[in-house]
C-alpha cells in the first residue's frame, strides 16, 4: 500500500446549477512531494480540494488517498490522513478557544485525553504558538489564525496537507514566517492552491496549472513558472 499519496483519475464535477467545475481532471502526487496548484479565480482549485476528503462527491472519476479508494467506508480514515486547511481561518477556527479548536480533530478520532493533550501541545509547538492554547480564537490576528488553522490539522498527524491559499491576506513578515513553517514540515505530502507565485517558487518543486476545470499544464515549477506565455494565457504572472 502506498502512503502519503494522492491519485485522482478522470474526475469531473458539476454544481447543482449545471456549472461544470471540474472536467476530466487527473493528478497523481507522490509521497513527500510538494505540489502547487495554480490557476485563475474560478478555475476549480477549491472544488478539487474539497473532493480530496469527500466533502464534495462526484460520481465521475476515481480518487485514492494513501492507496485507499475514497468511499463511505474509508471516509473516516482518509479524513484523518488528509488535513485540509481552508482559505478563511474564521471558517476553520470554530471553537471558543484555541485549545478546543486544535483538540477537535484528535477528539473526534476517538483518542484518549492524555494523547489529545500531547498532540495539541505538539501541534501548537510546531507552528510556534505554544502560549496560545487558552486564547480566544476571535481575538487573534490573521497571521496567528492561519498558524492555528494549520495546527488544527497537524494535531491529527496527517500524511498529507492540502492548503487553500495559505498566504492570502498576510503581511510580508507573516507570509515569510508561514513559508518557513511549511518548508519545515517535511513529513507531509503537500498540495497547495495559491496565487502567490513566489511561494510556489520557494516551496514547490512541481506545479499544476488548472483553468476552466481542466489541468492545462503539469511539470517542474522551474519550467512552468517562467513560461510567461503559459502564465499569461491563464491569468497568472511569473514571479
Amino acid at each position: 500500500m502506498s502512503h502519503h499519496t494522492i491519485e485522482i483519475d478522470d474526475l469531473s464535477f458539476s454544481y447543482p446549477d449545471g456549472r461544470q467545475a471540474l472536467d476530466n481532471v487527473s493528478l497523481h502526487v507522490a509521497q513527500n512531494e510538494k505540489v502547487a496548484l495554480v490557476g485563475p479565480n474560478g478555475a476549480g482549485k477549491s472544488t478539487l480540494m474539497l473532493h480530496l476528503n469527500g466533502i464534495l462527491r462526484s460520481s465521475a472519476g476515481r480518487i485514492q488517498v494513501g492507496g485507499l479508494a475514497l468511499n463511505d467506508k474509508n471516509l473516516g480514515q482518509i479524513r484523518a490522513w488528509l488535513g485540509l486547511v481552508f482559505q478563511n481561518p474564521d471558517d476553520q477556527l470554530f471553537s471558543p478557544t484555541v485549545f478546543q479548536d486544535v483538540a477537535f480533530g484528535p477528539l473526534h478520532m476517538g483518542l484518549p485525553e492524555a494523547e489529545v493533550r500531547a498532540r495539541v501541545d505538539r501541534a501548537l509547538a510546531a507552528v510556534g504558538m505554544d502560549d496560545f492554547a487558552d486564547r480566544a480564537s476571535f481575538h487573534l490576528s490573521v497571521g496567528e489564525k492561519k498558524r492555528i488553522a494549520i495546527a488544527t490539522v497537524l494535531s491529527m498527524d496527517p500524511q498529507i496537507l492540502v492548503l487553500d491559499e495559505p498566504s492570502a491576506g498576510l503581511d510580508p513578515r507573516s507570509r515569510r514566517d508561514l513559508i518557513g513553517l511549511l518548508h519545515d514540515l517535511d513529513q507531509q505530502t503537500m498540495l497547495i492552491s495559491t496565487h502567490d507565485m513566489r511561494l510556489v517558487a520557494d516551496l514547490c518543486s512541481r506545479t499544476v496549472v488548472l483553468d476552466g476545470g481542466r489541468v492545462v499544464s503539469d511539470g517542474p515549477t522551474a519550467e512552468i513558472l517562467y513560461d510567461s506565455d503559459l502564465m499569461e494565457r491563464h491569468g497568472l504572472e511569473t514571479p
Partner: protein
Amino acid sequence: MTLVHDRYRAINSPLHRLDPRVKLVTALLLIVGIVLTPERAWPAYPLLWALVGGIAAVGQLGVGRVARLGGVALPFALAAATLLFTTPGDPVISLAGLDITDNGLARFAAILLKSWLAVQVALLLSMSTHITDLLWALSSLRVPATLVAIISFMIRYLYTLQDEAQRLTRARAARSATHTGQRSGGSIRWRARVTGGLVGNLFLRSYERSERVYAAMLARGYRGELRSLDPPPLTGRAVLSGAGVIAALVVIELAALLLWG
C-alpha cells in the same frame, strides 16, 4: 463601536477560581431564592444584598460597582408599574384620578428590589466565570449538547458577525455622498429598503459561512456528535463553598417566611 461586550474580569480571586459548575448552580439557586422572597419581608432585602455584596467582595469585583451595574434591569421592571394601580388595597396617593394602593406600592417595591438583586447575581457569575468555563459547566450539568454547541458557535461568531456588519455599514456610509445643492439620502421608504438589503446580505453571508464551517468540521472527522474532554473532578471544597452560600440564603428565606412574612 462594540456591540458585543464581554463582562468577564480576569482577576485571581477565590470566586474566580471556584468550580464553574458550583458557581452556576449556586447562582441559579440564589436567583430563585431572591425571586421567592415574601414581598413584605423588608428586613430580608438588606440581608440578601449583604450576601450578594459579600460574594462580590470575595471576587474583588467592587460591591458598589456591582450594585450600580445591577440597576441596568430597572427600566424593564417599570413594566410592573401597573401593579401600583391594579392591586387591591387602601389608596395612598391619588394620581390623575387613579389610586395608588398600599399593597400595590409594596408589590412594586419588592419587584424592583428583587430584579436589582437577581441581576447582580447574574453579573457576579458572568464577571467571575469565563464563558468557555460556563459552557463546559452547562454540558456537565446535562444541558443537551446541541444547545451548548449552539451557544458556543454563537459566542464564537458574534464577533465575526459584528465585524461583517461593521464593514457593510461602512461601505454604505462611504457611498452616501451628497451632491452639491441637493438633499442627501432618499425617502424613508428608500432608506428602509437599503437597510433591509443590508440585513438580508448579512443573513446570506452568515448562512454561507455556516456551510463552510460545517465543511471544516467534517474535514476534521465530525460525524454528527460533538466530543469534548472530560471535565476535571468536582472538589469537596468547591461544593462546600457553594453550600455555604446556599445555607445563608436558606436562613434568610426561613426568617423572611416565619418572622417577617
